[in-house]
């Protein structure tokens, strides 16, 4: 979750490629954790992890592509960078279709590698932030009463207090009270922030 340290998870069966990559990232001050197979990575995997995953395509047992498929089933949030010993167009296309962020051919240059990793980490951070925001909004929304929630939805749709009162069959005054309670409970600083919040959570409303 937010605040947890970002880690690059390296999954590669070849020890020298794996260890050297970790060492290089270490010199750049990037935290790494290494796995020698897809299965050992999956056993350790947790939904709380933040960062990105670098996975080699060709490995004994589960291949990198199969690992991607399983991670998609687990609703993994971390971006995936795929490594391969040789560029093979059909495989690259399949990896991209499975949602890989980037595709690097060994041996890669260090700039290429670090650019790709930085982009992945940044994206991971963004995803984390959005997730955090979403959960914060969800907590706020839980605190609203049924009537306050109705009023909020109509406000977001752009209805006037008078219109809302007529639609719900209550006085304009009561609408105003509900409205101020909504702003208070959600800690929204403006109407536009309230609209944004509703958009993010629209599938929970």
């Amino acid at each position, binding site marked *: 979750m937010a605040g947890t340290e970002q880690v690059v998870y390296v999954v590669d069966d*070849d020890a*020298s*490629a794996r*260890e*050297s*990559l970790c*060492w*290089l990232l*270490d*010199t*750049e001050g990037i935290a790494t954790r290494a796995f020698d197979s897809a299965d050992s990575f999956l056993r350790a995997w947790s939904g709380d992890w933040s960062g990105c995953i670098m996975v080699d395509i*060709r490995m*004994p*047992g589960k291949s990198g592509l199969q690992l991607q498929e399983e991670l998609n089933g687990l609703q993994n949030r971390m971006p995936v960078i795929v490594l391969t*010993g*040789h560029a093979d167009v*059909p*495989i690259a296309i399949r990896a991209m279709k499975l949602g890989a962020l980037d595709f690097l051919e*060994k*041996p*890669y*240059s*260090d700039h290429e590698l670090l650019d790709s990793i930085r982009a992945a980490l940044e994206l991971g951070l963004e995803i984390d932030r959005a997730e955090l925001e979403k959960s914060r909004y969800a907590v706020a929304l839980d605190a609203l009463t049924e009537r306050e929630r109705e009023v909020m939805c109509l406000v977001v749709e752009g209805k006037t207090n008078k219109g809302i009162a007529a639609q719900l069959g209550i006085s304009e005054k009561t609408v105003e009270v509900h409205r101020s309670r909504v702003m208070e409970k959600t800690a929204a600083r403006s109407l536009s922030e309230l609209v944004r919040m509703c958009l993010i959570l629209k599938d929970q409303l």
Partner: protein
Amino acid sequence: MSIGVLAFRGEQDALERWSPTAEYLTESVADYRFRIVPLTLEGMVSEVSRDRLDFILTNTGNYVVLENAFGISRLATLKVRHLDKDFTQFGAVIFTRADHPELNEIEDIAGHSMLAVSQNAFGGFQMAWREMIDAGVDPFADLRALDFSGFPQDDIVHAVLAGDYDVGTVRSGTLERMAADKLIDIGKIKLLGARQSEAFPFLHSTRLYPEWPFAKARKTPEILAQRVAIALLQLQPESEAARKAYAAGWTIPLDYGPVHELFRQLEIGPYEYLKRPSLESVWREYRPWIIFSLVMILALIALAAMIGRANRRISQSESRYRDEANQRKQAQESLAAHKETLETRVRERTAELAEVNASLRRSEATLRAIHDITTDPDRSFETRLDDLLREGCRFFQMQFAATVVIRDGDVRLDKRVNSGAEELQAMAQRVANEVARISGTLTIQDFSDADALADSGCAGIASGSALGATYQVEDETSGCILFCDLQPGRRIFTDVDIDILQLMAQWLGGEIERAEINRRAQEHRAQLAHVSRLNTMGEMATGIAHELNQPLTAILNYSNGCLRLLHKQGDSNAELRDAITKVGADAKRAGDIIKRLREFIKRGELKRESFEITESIEAAVEMLRRRLLQNEISVATHCAANLPPILADRVQIEQVVVNLLLNAIDALQVCGPDSKRIEIEIDSSADGHILVTISDSGPGLPADTVERLFDPFFTTKPDGMGMGLSISRSIVESHGGTIEYQLDERGRPGFRFSLPPT
């Protein structure tokens, strides 16, 4: 070898009559066993249509039907021995009681009753039918009654003598046989439309047609057919095979053209279509109009018919009288001429007979020579062809022989024997052009007499003689064999010569076709081997690239990491920094070399085409047939119905199947001889992918090897390269499919690959 025999008197009779002939052929034609299969008319047609027979022995009429419909071809004609005389032809008699007051000619039969053996009987009815039609009597329309009695024909003779029917028809010879057996008094019988033939002393009212032929099915090899034909021609009249068959042996196949004419005229057999316009459909569509028109026309017809009949009778009898008068006059004249030249004729006849005898002996010797030449395994094709052409030159008494290649309108002399003067070559080329144009057989006894050829490709040849016949390769005329000479033919060319010429041409066509098929199979194998080599190199390069790229990646990672560390420490040691930079650059260069190598050897683009997966599987099994047999492995293929075609590279897919079969063959080495089985299942998955599973009855793979099976260089075989499965996976994946090792529900090991549909 099965010989289908028409059993018109029942199975038992056919077996007794023909089994000795089958035994004779088994003795005479080495390496083959012959047996008799008795069949009804319907059974004969159905067996021939399913290609179940190798040879066919049937009546003349049925033969022509089968020749037309299924391409059977005659090898010899039966020489029947009847009342101590030998015949290769027969006819039919149309007869009545000697004391019948109204019947004297065939045309008198109209309005009377008639009995025959069967509507389908060639000698027993159809011959008479033709003569009746010629005489203006339609047996199915103009008779008071037409009945069919079935065999034996003797009943018909008795019925007519007893007065139950006015007219009867039976096969020629029947009356004489019954008279000889004292069953009838031949004096009490009157023939209608009696004819005379020098060579045929039996009573007959119809034209004569050739006897039963012995024929070969279309698929039966020519060489075997030749051996059978030679054996039949050599059958002695005293032998058991001949006696049981009531025959004096067999002769060169006769011309069955007259039988075709009969069928065409009667619109039956192969020509039945001639009388089959779709009357029903016309009737359905225009019924009211037709009825209306018929009523209107009927009155007119009645009137016209009365007048017409009267006219016709008058003109018929007029022309008959005229013809008779003419014929009588001609007969008298020719009788006179005959008397004058009788002695000369006798001398000529004797000489002709001697010539015929000599020619038969020659042709028999030549047939034997052709047989010896074409079946000698020690002679190469070229030598055999040479010897064959020389034998032909000797037999036809011609100077020059050649084979000719005909392709896309181009006619080129190929192999020559006795190539002589330029004039001869030029003549041969012209004759070849003409034979190619007619795409058939050409015989020119003497060019100076052959006016009809003046407009053809032979125009300009002043004198000489030629024989030529085309041959087919895969149903297309692709060459011919020809003999020519600047002199007119030294002897008269006969039907036997044409048969022998065609035999030579057929043999040559067959040999060329076989060589072509061999060449194509060879080419296919070479193509697969080439693709296989390319694939192996490509896969090795990929494997090496993968293996080397791992350490190169590590080197680059370490060198880059070092440079970053040095940079952080202020780049104080420039010498060290430069050296490490060079380490990285060299590692990168090594990576580039590998990349270029891979691109260089990279497999070509896939040549995708749409085809049935079963074709690849059959081709692969066929290719490994010898190895499967050597190892006593049985292969069973199960294929689901209605599979869609796939869009793939045919040769590559075939290589996958070959690789998997080779692995299965190796895996089965450890099994006992009776338990070596490979099963191939072809099915489709729910999403339309084609699934091919190749499993074997072997022990399967150790569990610890399964993970690495598809890795390049990984192998469990002592002399294996570890490329087969790796290549197979690359091919399947490049087609968008998958491949995996699995145990099926019965625990048998195997590989399954999938391919997306078109």
